[in-house]
């Protein structure tokens, strides 16, 4: 936002996107009625909303499954990513040995890994592992970058006062890495959801999943297009919620000291 933005423009900041969204939905509704599109081609927003309400028990259950997978994957990826980052940042040997594996996991498209994982793991576990794999890399690479981007003078100061490597890690490296880590976590949150959804679709054929992506696949087999849209809407909302949540977390952790949380008028 601009410095000293007048109240109207601040209002516009929130209202304009909402208006644009409302206009798009209105246009969609109009198009469906004007061209009398059948609901199996394009359901109207009204129908999607009705389906969302009518199927709420089923969809809520699926939403919960997807969210659980995403959250669990994010937690595992965060713990593993941070621990490995600390290892890589403290030893060149470990970095040279292990980092290539992380890169290979990162650059190989998940959708290609999923079917292979499904051979060895039962579907729910495979979905979780897929989501972990994609969420893991941004946490790892950002945290490594943060742990190694320390102020040289501060590092000298720690040396001057005889700090051992544990104290340097706890009081210098980890706090320095925090903004980088949180940036990585924000990316990882979105990717964990994408990973969970992609893997659910790959596993969907096995017929044991019950997450939102599985609902989409199942509904497409039944030509239940409104339910596909309803499930898609929930996935989008889940993504927005995760993003917002991690943004709030980042703000709360960094607000007192980091430049990124400075407002223009401070």
């Amino acid at each position, binding site marked *: 936002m601009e410095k000293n933005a007048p109240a109207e423009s601040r209002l516009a900041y929130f209202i304009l996107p909402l208006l644009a969204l409302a206009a798009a939905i209105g246009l969609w509704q109009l198009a469906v009625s004007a061209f009398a599109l059948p609901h199996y081609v394009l359901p109207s927003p009204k129908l999607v909303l009705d389906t969302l309400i009518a199927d709420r028990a089923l969809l809520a259950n699926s939403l919960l499954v997807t969210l659980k997978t995403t959250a669990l994957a994010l937690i595992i990826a965060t713990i593993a990513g941070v621990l490995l980052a600390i290892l890589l940042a403290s030893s060149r040997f470990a970095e040279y040995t292990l980092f290539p594996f992380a890169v290979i996991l990162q650059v190989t498209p998940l959708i290609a890994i999923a079917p292979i994982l499904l051979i060895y793991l039962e579907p729910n576990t495979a979905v979780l592992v897929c989501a972990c794999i994609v969420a893991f890399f941004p946490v790892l690479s950002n945290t490594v970058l943060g742990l190694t981007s320390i102020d040289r003078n501060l590092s000298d100061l720690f040396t*001057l006062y005889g700090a051992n490597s544990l104290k340097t890690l706890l009081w210098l490296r980890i706090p320095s890495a925090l903004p980088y880590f949180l940036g990585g976590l924000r990316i990882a949150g979105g990717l964990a959801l994408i990973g969970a959804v992609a893997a659910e679709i790959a596993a969907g054929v096995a017929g044991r999943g019950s997450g939102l992506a599985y609902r989409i696949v199942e509904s497409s087999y039944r030509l239940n297009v409104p339910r596909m849209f309803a499930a898609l809407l929930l996935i989008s909302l889940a993504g927005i919620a995760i993003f917002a949540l991690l943004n709030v977390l980042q703000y709360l952790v960094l607000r007192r000291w*980091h430049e990124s949380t400075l407002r223009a008028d401070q």
Partner: protein
Amino acid sequence: MPAAAPSLSRQNSPLAAFHDVGKRFPNGVTALEDLNLTIRAGEFLSLLGPSGCGKSTALRLLAGLTSPSSGNIEWNDRSAAREIGFVFQEPTLMPWASVENNVRLPLRLKGMSGRAADLRIDEALALVGLSEFRNAYPRELSGGMRMRVSIARALVTQPKLLLMDEPFASLDEISRFRLNDDLRMLWNRLGCTIVFVTHSVFESVYLSSRILMFTPRPGKIAAEFEIVAPEPREGNFRTSPEYGAKCREVSAALASVMGER
């Protein structure tokens, strides 16, 4: 001027000496060559010279942050080698920690905590006039105040030797003058030895009891000046004819050092 110069009496015994110290970096740059100098206990010594003449390297050698490629540094008082405060060109504060916790860092690293540490912190903050800002964060402070925090952090361990690497170079002139005055006051009061690296003739003449002038790289001592002036210097010294004359003398020497190359 006897009563006005308590510091002169403590400037006799050597604290540390460089003997033929050389420093060559892995990239082939020779920062220092056959450097010989003595630091006297209790003096305010300025190392003056052009950028890149190795004066900062000399300071880092003294702090033990790097070791000489040749020659050696002899300490008359071994304990002084371990009781060093260092102030960098930048304030170099931890942005995630409050003023108080930044100042606390050296004590924490040395394993000092509790009431004793709190007292030291109170004292150090009072010395730099920042007692009211103990809970502030670095980004909330001005450049001059950040530098004060940095000085408080260096003083909190009550070092025998305070090393300062162009600490005021990036400050505006008003803040710099005030900090110069405060630093003189602190030196008179605390009785520690200060080695101050600067490229400003005016600053070094104002602050120091002695100036060592470096040649361009590889750095050697080109000239030495004793600055004798009434203590305390705050106020009148900066506008006195003696100050002007000394600045002219040092500037001329610096010009000839630079001209030789």
